[in-house]
């Protein structure tokens, strides 16, 4: 298959999923599309090389998640600089997909990396080995992020949290 056609096929298959994942990290639809497109622009630049990889979709997802994490950190830092505390970070309802606004509000209180781990684990159903690779940490650190995030979310949402992750 020709490289350009190959890329288009890959784009059609993966772009919606990447947008959804980034959206669940950022809860800003326009920004999620921008970040997903930034990741695919990078993929296209390196396509000749990446297309030979075993999982080019993991490559683009890693770029997108890292861009999203950086963006979320910048947003948090701006909030901290502006108000002196992250606890008062306002939760603006997203115009898209506010199915569970309390859940969104609670997720926005998590550090960016924890958010990414939670989304990759619960939404993408990825094993922790892959999640660690994508977010750029060790597997044990990935588990720590996940357990801390669950505990915090359970407190914020008054939900039950067991020791085992389901």
């Amino acid at each position, binding site marked *: 298959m020709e490289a350009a056609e190959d890329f288009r096929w890959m784009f*059609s298959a993966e772009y919606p999923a990447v947008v959804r994942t980034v959206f669940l990290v950022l809860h800003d639809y326009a920004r999620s599309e921008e970040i997903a497109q930034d990741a695919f622009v990078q993929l296209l630049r390196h396509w000749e090389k990446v297309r030979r990889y075993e999982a080019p979709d993991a490559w683009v997802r890693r770029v997108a998640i890292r861009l999203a994490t*950086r963006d979320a950190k910048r947003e948090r830092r701006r909030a901290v600089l502006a108000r002196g505390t992250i606890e008062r970070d306002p939760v603006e309802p997203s115009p898209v997909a506010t*199915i569970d606004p309390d859940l969104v509000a609670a997720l926005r209180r998590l550090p960016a990396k924890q958010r990414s781990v939670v989304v990759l684990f619960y939404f993408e159903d990825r094993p922790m080995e892959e999640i660690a690779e994508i977010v750029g940490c060790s597997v044990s650190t990935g588990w720590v992020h996940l357990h801390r995030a669950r505990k915090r979310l359970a407190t914020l949402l008054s939900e039950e*949290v067991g020791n085992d992750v389901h």
Partner: protein
Amino acid sequence: MSIDRRLREGFRQAADALTPDSLAALHAVERRAQRRQRRAVVVQLAAAAVVMALVLVGLPWAVGQWQRPDTAAPPAPASGLAGEYVVDIGESGLTRSEGMVGRWIIRLTRDGAIVLVPPDSFQGSRTGMSYQVDGDQIRTNAFVNDLCGAASSADPVGTYRWSRTASMLRFTVVTDSCEARRLFLEDQPWEEVP
């Protein structure tokens, strides 16, 4: 409901409600990639032109220098910035939360080390920091052990342009994604201790 179930269901519902327009996005991505490629070609051509110009101008000059007797000045000290400085870090969300507010004493040594005496409220690392001067620019890994280190997403090294008056040293950021270091270096001038 368990938190695990709520997360799975919440994510699934939110994601199902999203329907990105893949075709429009594909066109946008291809256009942007082409623009970027064109820009890269222009930059490469410009760089090649600059190199050619430098060769054409610099070669005769270098030959002239080589033929002149050696009257070169002794090498400059490692850094014209070496000395002791004080700076008062003001209140902001980040400086308050990191305990940075207050008077800092900074010693830039000739061999490129940075020695810090922070205010009592600062609990971060104060060792292992260095700087390097290159013309009017300075590269530094200040706060690399914590505020600008691996745990943050910031670059470990920042680049600044420096300028000085009789007793003041001032920095302007060139590239640095570390907020704490920018506040430390750029927000107020450093006053040299005579």
